[in-house]
């Protein structure tokens, strides 16, 4: 069964490779929010690659998760920072991003071990992104701005962040459970992640058509 999960990891890597190639095409023509999403996909591809490398050599790859969750938090915060037109919200996002990023680093160094899931860190960072995502929907409802161009990817972010928040929050408990019993959860995680990648691609195509 672990062998199947390993293959799934490589399939994810391939999917991320294709998507990062697609989103990096005509990168200069993208609007700033989409440039951030393209960079996020590229970064995810890199993180997945390193993680798979660790896994191949049977090394603990949870250290990558610590770095990746920080990168993901900064990337999505930057995305929501660029999509909002409210000055107060921008300033709040900036302050929250700096504070939480520092807390995540402190947490990874002194609190949660780099060899374990950073449950608390993921809970805080993903939770914040979920709040941003919901606020984004509210903002779009009351405006006619260009932020409407990123609705699909925002739906994907909301779904994926909610899902990974739960899975990684209980990551350390799952380590104690037999692999066969946790496979369903990791499969759900993989499906949600693929759905998220599909939504990014869909939004990318939609943006390319309107350009």
């Amino acid at each position: 069964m672990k062998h199947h999960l390993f293959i799934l990891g490589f399939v994810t890597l391939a999917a991320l490779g294709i998507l990062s190639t697609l989103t990096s095409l005509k990168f200069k023509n993208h609007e700033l929010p989409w440039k951030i999403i393209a960079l996020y996909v590229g970064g995810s591809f890199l993180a997945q690659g390193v993680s798979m490398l660790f896994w191949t050599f049977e090394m603990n790859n949870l250290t990558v998760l610590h770095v990746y969750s920080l990168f993901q938090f900064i990337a999505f915060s930057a995305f929501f920072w660029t999509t909002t037109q409210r000055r107060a919200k921008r300033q709040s996002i900036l302050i929250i991003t700096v504070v939480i990023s520092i807390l995540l680093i402190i947490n990874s160094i002194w609190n949660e071990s780099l060899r374990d899931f950073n449950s608390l860190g993921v809970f805080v960072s993903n939770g914040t992104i979920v709040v941003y995502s919901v606020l984004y929907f509210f903002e779009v409802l009351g405006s006619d701005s260009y932020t409407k161009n990123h609705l699909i990817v925002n739906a994907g972010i909301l779904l994926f962040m909610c899902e990974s928040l739960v899975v990684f929050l209980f990551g350390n408990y799952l380590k104690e459970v037999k692999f066969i019993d946790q496979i369903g959860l990791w499969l759900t995680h993989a499906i949600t992640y693929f759905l998220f990648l599909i939504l990014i691609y869909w939004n990318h195509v939609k943006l390319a058509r309107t350009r």
Partner: protein
Amino acid sequence: MLNSPEPAENLTIYIALILFAVLALALTIILLFFVSRKKISQKKLEAQALKLKHKSDLIIYNIETQEMERQRIAQDLHDDIGSQLNLISLGLHRLQKVGSKIEQEETDAILLLTEGVIDRVRSLSHELLPPILEKFGLIAALQEVEFNYNKINSIQLNFKTNIDDEDIYVDLSRRLHLYRICQELIQNSLKHGKAKCIRMSLLGQNDTLILSFNDDGVGFDVNKLDSGKGMGLMNIENRVEMLHGTMSIESELHEGSSFQIRLPKLEKDERDH
């Protein structure tokens, strides 16, 4: 709960339940957002349509009032001021025969002035409501317009029609609106388009009356029309709307402009009325 020594299956079931609950919540938020967004845009569209209708109603009311007022002024000019001026002219003619030479010369001058005023009043009254339109119909009125404009050497206006019986297509009020549309189009062509040659046709095709108008003026960018329409063009559009017709505009800079207005044929009861 998590620290209690529960069987592993139970723990994963709890996590799975939380996971699906959170996912369901996220999906509900997304669904609610898209439903609300659709409703909001529908409401916005409705409000916009209502605003447009209100504006259009106001303009139509304005046009109708304007026409009624024009008719009233034309009638007053013709029946009241015109007839009184004629009486003055008659009196002056009588005075001319009985007075001394100096008085006759003065009467001549006053008579000349009075006849000038009578002519001006008549032409004003005709401009406001051309009698030819009522007496001989739209085709005759447009032919008169063609004749009058062609008298000016620098402008060439060409009007053609294939309609024998215009009553199938236009009643009195429609005639007036169509006449005003033509007047407005000609005015726009000459004033803004600096046109030298205008071609106008009124053709009946089965159930449709087609008014085509082309000029060789400076033209304009049709795409910019939405951002700023002149009063003249808005007037034309509203008159077309009042006649339940449609209008298409084609124009390019330095390529002249062309308008096509299509109006439905009158229903039988409308004709009888």
